[in-house]
């Protein structure tokens, strides 16, 4: 597992390393997936759940979760919501971006060995969970039931739609998808993603749940998991705040006593529930 310390090059962890965009694929109207390769330096070796700081020269830097197979090229799925993320999305193959990291901790894939695994994703929250899903599927025989529960705003907002279709064809993976709102042409479920938890097949006492999406969606999903009987210390959520340095030095991503870029972004729900309830944090 690579850590922030591993990311230190001769230049240091605060200096972006040049990476070239090798592929760019549109996922949604405002969301793109980029593949990046180093222009000459070391490859980035992230673990599922980690993020990098992506720098568009002359524009700025943002934290972006790794969304691809950690054994492959560096892959990020980015939603264009601000000046920097928009510039990243507009980066054609050949463009050089700066990369720092990987930073942060990881999804507890090893902890889940031998257990059922429930992956609950909302919206673009599927992107940070995808490396964990790949890691589980790579050693599929080592886990019990595996369920991927995914929700988005509308059918047009479903991320990795073709891949979800392929995953649904597997006999060793339960995939359930819902949307908040749909009109003609959608034959799937309509409702919020936490509702899917009721119908998923897993042993509540021993399952490990990985949850990622908007914070309020994670809150409702965690409550639905608790209602099913999943212990709070077996529910993991991925948080995001204003990550800037990636090393826990600048303090921008502080959440109470924890720095999300350094101690997170993945937290056990029992460690975070109280902090999530504090409005001022």
């Amino acid at each position, binding site marked *: 597992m690579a850590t922030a310390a591993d990311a230190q090059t001769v230049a240091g962890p605060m200096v972006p390393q040049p990476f070239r965009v090798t592929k760019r694929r549109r996922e949604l109207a405002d969301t793109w997936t980029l593949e990046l390769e180093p222009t000459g330096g070391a490859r980035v070796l992230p673990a599922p759940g980690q993020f990098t700081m992506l720098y568009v020269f002359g524009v700025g830097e*943002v934290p*972006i*979760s790794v969304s691809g197979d950690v054994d492959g090229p560096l892959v990020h799925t*980015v*939603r*264009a*919501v*601000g000046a920097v*993320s928009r510039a990243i999305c507009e980066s054609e193959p050949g463009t050089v971006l700066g990369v720092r990291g990987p930073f942060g901790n990881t999804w507890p894939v090893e902890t889940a060995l031998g257990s059922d695994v429930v992956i609950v994703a*909302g*919206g*673009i*929250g599927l*992107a*940070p969970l995808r490396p964990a899903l790949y890691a589980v599927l790579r050693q599929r025989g080592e886990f019990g039931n595996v369920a991927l529960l995914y929700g*988005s*705003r509308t059918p047009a*907002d479903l991320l990795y739609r073709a891949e979800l279709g392929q995953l649904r064809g597997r006999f060793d993976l339960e995939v359930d998808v*819902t949307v*908040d*709102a*749909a*009109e*003609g042409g*959608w*034959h*799937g*479920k*309509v*409702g*919020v993603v*936490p*509702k899917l938890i009721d*119908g998923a097949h897993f042993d509540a006492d021993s399952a490990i749940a990985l949850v*990622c*999406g*908007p*914070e*309020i*969606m994670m809150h*409702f999903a965690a409550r639905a998991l608790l209602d099913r009987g999943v212990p709070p210390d077996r529910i993991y959520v991925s948080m*995001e705040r204003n990550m800037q340095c990636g090393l826990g030095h600048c303090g921008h991503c502080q959440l109470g006593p924890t720095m999300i870029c350094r101690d997170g972004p993945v937290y056990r729900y029992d460690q975070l529930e109280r902090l999530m309830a504090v409005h001022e944090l």
Partner: protein
Amino acid sequence: METIEAVLREVQLFEGLSHEQLETIAGCGQNVQFPEGELLFKDRDPAESFFVLRHGSVALETFVPTRGAVVIETLEAGEVVGWSWLFAPYRWHFDARALSLVRATSFDGACLRGKAESDPKLGYELMSRFAQVMIRRLQWTRLRLLDVYGDGHRS
């Protein structure tokens, strides 16, 4: 063939009810099925029953002028469809349409209300259990009202 009482035992809504109570509720039930596309009930019609879905899925819809039928929520096997039978004026608030072949158990609302009136303990159980269904759906609806995916979260 599975009895209606046996079906009820599998439904979370009725978990913990006594054998006698299940028997009473089952006495108001009958098995029904709807082909794909058929309405289980229609907005503003008298709400004379509720359904426990055993197979298939159902869409709760409302008709919006210029947009047509808009799906509010889908319900799956194991879930309950309908609570308007429990509250005056006993009229449906949405359409319910079978999205596939639906097999369900339908319960006569007037029959159950009558039994609840003569057996307040059963009435309390039914009321509190349907209140749980309504609370849960209210919470999900509130979550949807927040439009949580629309704020640019998680780039």
